[in-house]
């Protein structure tokens, strides 16, 4: 094969041609990639162009930190104050099909107060094939509920007090859409207006110091005894109340002593202090005294035959009563129990064994926890202590047995533990610090699944009394 022949041969020709094609292609690609690179800044101008069509420019760019930018249902990556006074927020919502959904939300800021949503535009949403501007009408109905938004309601796909069926068409990422818009609203309220935004499970929870408040539920008697500790209300100090509500009406209401020495007794009407005024009142009557749901109109006090003055403290009285009565059903809803946010209530069952008296058998099914699959536990609690704790099989084959400690799996670790000891492992009530596992003498690793273990145990112990009366008969 002489050299000349080699150059003519098919082998060399194919090598040369392919090399030529590849070099040209590679060159073109690299050059065009640099040439046509769309910088973020240009992309941002394009979005502004699309939303405002040139009518407004960016006045000020807000700094986004990890602390003010992340929320439980989504996150905010950028926010700008526009020349027309409104705020343009780039927020993402979790739970989209195959990834988060990113939205540009224009929030109306009328003279420093939240005024609703002016426009919503899809930025990109990985995993969503075509939600582009073909269906702009898709986002209009986000802007049609401003009055409800001002009241404090949020967008959602389920639940009573949310604005739902806002999103039609693809239901897959509709909750991601709502999460993104809600996140933008929360960000606007917290970062821009400085309001303290915390999502509440109960009504009037804003005024109650939940950490010290205890709720005793008696399912059989359908009554709740609460020890409500109110937050300080302006100059009025924090007041504590012992309230029992039966069948939705207050049966006992007594302001415990601590408030007296800080305040002048004569200013507060006798019937308020010993609670006789509230006895027998239902949620509607109390709510009537708090027209806008929070402030007590002093003038109304005469109308109710009460001594005027000390309106801030009496306001706390009314708020406590409202808190106790308005949430009466909510207290009995299992989702609002302590440590209950990760339990899958559809599949869980709780049976109360009559013969043994105070023994409750719980089959608790935990929701999936990040990548850890949903795990089911069979727990029996007798006289307030765990007597048997066993993780049923389903979780094993998806997960590596060696990662979870033997004593956790067969439950021996939890037997006999008190609620305090278990609660100690969950500092903020829900996350298990992997490092602590070592401290408790357990194999580290597989922290997500072990977290479900601890949560289930904590739930079982803390709600033993509730299910003692509330669970089905065995």
């Amino acid at each position: 094969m002489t050299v000349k022949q080699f150059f003519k041969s098919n082998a060399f020709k194919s090598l040369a041609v392919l090399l030529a094609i590849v070099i040209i292609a590679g060159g073109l690609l690299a050059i065009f990639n640099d040439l046509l690179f769309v910088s973020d800044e240009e992309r941002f101008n394009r979005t502004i162009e699309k939303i405002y069509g040139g009518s407004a420019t960016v006045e000020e760019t807000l700094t986004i930190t990890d602390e003010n930018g992340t929320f439980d249902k989504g996150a905010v990556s950028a926010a700008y104050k526009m020349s027309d006074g409104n705020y343009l927020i780039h927020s993402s919502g979790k739970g989209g099909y195959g990834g988060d959904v990113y939205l540009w939300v224009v929030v109306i800021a009328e003279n420093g107060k939240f005024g609703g949503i002016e426009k919503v535009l899809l930025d990109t949403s990985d995993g969503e094939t075509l939600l582009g501007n073909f269906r702009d009408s898709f986002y209009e109905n986000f802007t049609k509920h401003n009055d409800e938004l001002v009241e404090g309601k949020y967008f959602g796909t389920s639940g009573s007090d949310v604005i739902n069926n806002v999103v039609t068409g693809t239901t897959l990422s509709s909750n991601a859409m709502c999460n993104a818009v809600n996140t933008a609203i929360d960000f606007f309220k917290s970062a821009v207006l400085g309001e303290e935004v915390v999502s509440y499970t109960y009504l009037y929870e804003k005024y109650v110091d939940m950490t010290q408040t205890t709720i005793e539920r008696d399912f059989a008697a359908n009554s709740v005894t609460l020890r409500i500790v109110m937050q300080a209300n302006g100059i009025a100090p924090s007041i504590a109340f012992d309230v029992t509500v039966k069948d939705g009406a207050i049966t006992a209401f007594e302001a415990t002593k601590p408030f007296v020495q800080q305040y002048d007794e004569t200013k507060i009407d006798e019937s308020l202090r010993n609670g006789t005024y509230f006895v027998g009142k239902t949620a509607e009557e109390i709510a009537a005294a708090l027209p806008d749901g929070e402030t007590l109109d002093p003038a109304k006090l005469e109308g109710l035959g009460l001594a005027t003055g000390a309106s801030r403290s009496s306001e706390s009285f009314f708020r406590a009563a409202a808190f106790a009565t308005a949430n009466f059903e909510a207290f009995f809803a299992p989702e609002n129990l302590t440590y209950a946010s990760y339990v899958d209530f559809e599949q869980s069952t709780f049976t109360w064994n009559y013969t043994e008296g105070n023994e409750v058998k719980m089959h608790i099914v935990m929701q999936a926890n990040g990548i850890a699959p949903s795990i089911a536990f069979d727990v029996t609690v007798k006289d307030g202590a765990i007597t048997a704790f066993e993780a049923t099989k389903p979780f094993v084959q998806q997960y590596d047995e060696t990662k979870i400690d033997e004593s956790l799996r067969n439950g021996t670790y939890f037997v006999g533990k008190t609620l305090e000891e278990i609660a100690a492992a969950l500092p903020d009530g829900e996350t298990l610090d992997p490092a602590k596992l070592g401290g408790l003498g357990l194999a580290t690793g597989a922290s997500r699944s072990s977290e479900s273990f601890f949560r289930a145990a904590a739930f079982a112990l803390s709600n033993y009394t509730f299910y003692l009366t509330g669970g089905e008969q065995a």
Partner: protein
Amino acid sequence: MNKYVKTAVDGLITNNATFKLVLGTCATLALTTSAINGVGMGLSVTAVLLLSNVVISLLRKVIPNTVRIPAFIVIIATMVTILRMALDKFLPDLYDSMGVFLPLIVVNCIILGRAEAFASKQPVLDSAIDGVATGLGFTAALTIMGVIRELLGSGSFFGIQLWDFKIGFFTSSAGAFFVYGMCIALFTLISNRVEYAHRARKARELRVPAEGPLDAPGISAKEEA
């Protein structure tokens, strides 16, 4: 019919890429959950197919047979990527609606299929016509399936909600298979009917006896009797 019209009709109807050659099934099954996706994907494929057929048929004599597949695929992939970059830079709103399909096209079997079967053997003009015809045939097929699945699956037509009676089966992938199978069956049925009619007409033309339709002695005698 002259050559070009025949290629066009071939690409569009007779051997339609989706229903007859059954190529590009991944895109067909995945993207026909809504009609708009079908149209968007179809038009993007048509554009890319036209470009790639022309370029490949220009180079068909140069590329030796031993390395034809890598060569073709590099050409197609580079073209799609540069098209995507250009679209993103100069026509952003078109990119928003079409852009999401372009990376999918590189993996689409139709482009390489037509390049391999047709463009690498035919002159440029034929390849171009074939590219456009196959692309439009693909768009039509995807739109039809998109409409069916969207109408039955999510009760809307091109995004406009008509009724909220939804059959989940049709938006699922098992449903995609089913609808695709039924469309092919319908297509085969129709094309068979058309072909029989065409063949019967051709056979009848043949059957006219040499001297002319009626003056043959045998036939006239019999009719009078």
